[in-house]
């Protein structure tokens, strides 16, 4: 994304008289801030006259790739168009995957393609690996579903650990735990059962969360998942 420093030379010159003529309430507030921004960044003087020297300097700097906010994170925030587009598309795709999964659609045909697309767009986002892993747990038509799910969960673990932050790994585990709990709740609401693999993964996840956080609620939730397995409250392959 090109810096506005370049745009403003045209914007201020072309629109300032137009902006000044506008008198609607919230628009005036926005215009006040835009004008102030132009003044403090030396694009115009206080009367709205453009500073051609500053504009030329900015334009030349921009053309040679020297335009910068002076802060790497600021540059990234301004220049995030492509990343943000990928993120929004991936999010939309994953939402479609969850919706199809919750509606009980065919996993291979109607669920996995959405998660695959999200992963292609954002390969370092562990939430989509967790999503696809859970979808695989529910795929009783695939005899290797548990292995496919394990592969996804292992990749999610690896991505979270790669950050070097224990908090990130915990965030990833909580994301998985919450997604599993949502799936079980939806199945219960429909008086249906999840697969045995879902309860097994729930039990494993709660156990790890209990060990990492020491929160007893996770221990109780693990016991509940184990009880569901012992009492056979799950769906099995024919």
């Amino acid at each position, binding site marked *: 994304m090109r810096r506005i420093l370049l745009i403003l030379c045209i914007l201020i010159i072309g629109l300032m008289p137009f902006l000044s003529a506008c008198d609607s309430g919230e628009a005036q507030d926005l215009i006040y801030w835009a004008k102030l921004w132009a003044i403090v960044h030396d694009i115009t003087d206080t009367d709205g006259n453009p500073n051609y020297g500053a504009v030329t300097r900015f334009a030349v700097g921009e053309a040679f790739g020297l335009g910068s906010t002076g802060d790497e994170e600021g540059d990234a925030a301004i220049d995030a168009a492509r990343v943000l587009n990928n993120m929004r598309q991936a999010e939309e795709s994953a939402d479609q995957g969850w919706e199809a999964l919750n509606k009980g659609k065919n996993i291979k045909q109607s669920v996995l393609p959405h998660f695959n697309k999200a992963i292609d767009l954002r390969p370092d986002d562990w939430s989509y690996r967790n999503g696809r892993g859970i979808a695989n747990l529910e795929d009783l038509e695939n005899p290797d579903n548990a292995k496919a799910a394990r592969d996804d969960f292992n990749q999610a673990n690896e991505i979270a650990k790669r950050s070097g932050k224990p908090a990130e790994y915990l965030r*990833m585990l909580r994301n998985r735990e919450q997604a599993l709990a949502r799936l079980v709740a939806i199945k219960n609401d429909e008086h249906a059962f999840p697969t045995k693999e879902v309860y097994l993964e729930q039990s494993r996840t709660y156990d790890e969360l209990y060990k990492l956080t020491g929160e007893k609620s996770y221990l109780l939730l693990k016991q509940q998942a184990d009880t569901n397995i012992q009492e056979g409250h799950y769906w099995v392959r024919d």
Partner: protein
Amino acid sequence: MSKDSKTQTKPPKKKGFPFGKIILLILVLFVLAAVLQYFRIPQKIGLIKSPADNLFTMTPDSEKAAVIMDNLQAAGLNTSGVEVYVLPVAGTDHNLAMIVLDASKGFTFGSYSGGDPVKDFLAVISQAQGDGINRAAITYYDEEGRQLVAATVPMDAINAYSQGNLTDNQLMEQVDVGTDDLWAFIGMIKDQLK
């Protein structure tokens, strides 16, 4: 004087490019590099990663984003067509709160009924610093779903402003803005002000 010695006195032929052509070639390469850089071609074809590609690789924090969205709604701001992403910055403990205003999903500036929308927005965002958010950004998508403009400001400046320690001018000094489509952005402003 023999025939052979006459031949030896001829000036040797010049080899390679003349100096003028070299200068011209350098100039052409210089302009080409500037054009490639201006249109961000190396980033677009993946030769160079943008700062965003390097820093925003981690999974967005949906829990923190939900808190900000709740705060926006509680403050009475219009959240139709608004999305919030909290992006952890790789290799740091920093987070960027990215607020997307998407006209193609129902956002309009005109539906705002509060006071100064900028001040109201800053008041809400200032609450997020406790969640480890150190920078806020806003980006606007037009009715065709094109990203037109983005603005960003550090949380320190927002908090100082909210506490009355910065003037409007000092706050604006901390704000950076960028656009991907200059003409569409100008057109959008004209449309909004009609």
